[in-house]
């Protein structure tokens, strides 16, 4: 069984999406005796049309991307446009999507999920569904105890896919938590956002680049 992962992160191999697909692949390979997985990075393809051939030669494919301005990144849309006039109806390929975002709530990605559901219909593909995961920005800076649980869920997601050739509804639900911030979390957030902890991730990077003093710069303001 050949699994192709198409990674649509503009950051490519150094992306947060790659951290997730690494765990996903480990889970998938824990089942398959002959683990045939290739990960492709859209940003590396000047002609994304070449990825059609990749899909045609796969049994399973996952397209993963970060939420950019409430939708897919521009390079992912360019990839989707190569499907114009194309149908997968005569193939055995099963395709799923994973959308990750920096916002903690899954709700931000619900609208692009609706688009992906429709896209799957449009290209006549056997559709695995779309997994949503929020709170991924800064994943590499987060301590292990913060990421352990959901990285395990990506492992489980891959393992389940290898066993049953489908996304687990239960794992999908757990990854998508929270859909919205609960009343209790909102109280915590309101307090948290007033503290310097809320901006620490960004502030540290700005300080490293001597940009902190200009953090509220308005380069297009009229003098």
């Amino acid at each position, binding site marked *: 069984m050949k699994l192709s992962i198409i990674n649509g992160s503009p950051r490519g191999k150094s992306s947060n999406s790659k951290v997730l697909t690494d765990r996903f692949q480990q889970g998938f390979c824990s089942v398959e005796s002959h683990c045939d997985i290739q990960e492709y990075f859209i940003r590396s393809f000047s002609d994304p049309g070449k990825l059609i051939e990749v899909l045609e030669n796969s049994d399973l494919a996952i397209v993963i991307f970060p939420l950019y301005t409430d939708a897919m*990144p*521009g390079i992912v849309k360019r990839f989707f446009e190569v499907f114009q006039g194309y149908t997968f109806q005569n193939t055995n390929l099963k395709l799923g999507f994973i959308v990750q975002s920096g916002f903690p709530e899954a709700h*931000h990605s619900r*609208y*692009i999920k609706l688009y992906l559901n429709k*896209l799957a219909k449009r290209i006549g593909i056997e559709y695995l569904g779309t997994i949503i995961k929020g709170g991924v920005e800064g994943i590499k800076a987060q301590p292990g105890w913060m990421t352990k649980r959901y990285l395990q869920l990506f492992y489980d997601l891959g393992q389940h896919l290898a066993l049953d050739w489908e996304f687990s509804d239960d794992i999908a639900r757990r990854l998508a938590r929270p859909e919205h911030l609960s009343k209790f979390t909102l109280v915590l957030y309101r307090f948290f956002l007033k503290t310097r902890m809320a901006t620490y991730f960004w502030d540290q990077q700005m300080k490293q680049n001597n940009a902190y003093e200009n953090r*509220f710069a*308005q380069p297009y303001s009229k003098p």
Partner: protein
Amino acid sequence: MKITILNGNPDTQKKDFESYLDDLALALDDLGMEVTTITLREKDIHSCTGCWGCWVKTPGECVIPDDSIEIRNEIIHSDLLVFASPLIMGFTSALLKIMQDKLIPLVHPYIELVNNECHHIKRYKEYPKLALIYSPEPDTDTEDIQIVTHIYQRLAINFKSELVFSQSIETSAEKLVHEIIHHQR
């Protein structure tokens, strides 16, 4: 009233789309509005690389020097920003989406709660209202329009704005002019 139209049509053969935007711009111009149409296919715009340099290295400005600099400048001084594109595979063009991704420098990385959701805080005092003009594909249905419109409504929340209309080029330019006048700030 200053209006910026981002023309995200990648295909010069789509004459109906081009002439619709031309007619609209002329009608608005006749009413004394300042209209700037930016044809994205003629611009040099590099895709966002997700480096967040526009937040952590040169706050408010993309680290890649391309034509998006002048476009952001036009946008932030506009009262209305019109996203214009044919629908391709059920969504606005990659050409337009690549420019949309480059609007990120106009907001701040810090987060605030808006309607009990996390969103970016403002970088500027004021932002233009947003509008969407699209040309449908032969298989476009109501669901497609709802999906695209919802996504642009979500963009408007993050862009400290509101989506004042989402209309097909099958709507008369005259009706759109009325909508625009109605939503003047």
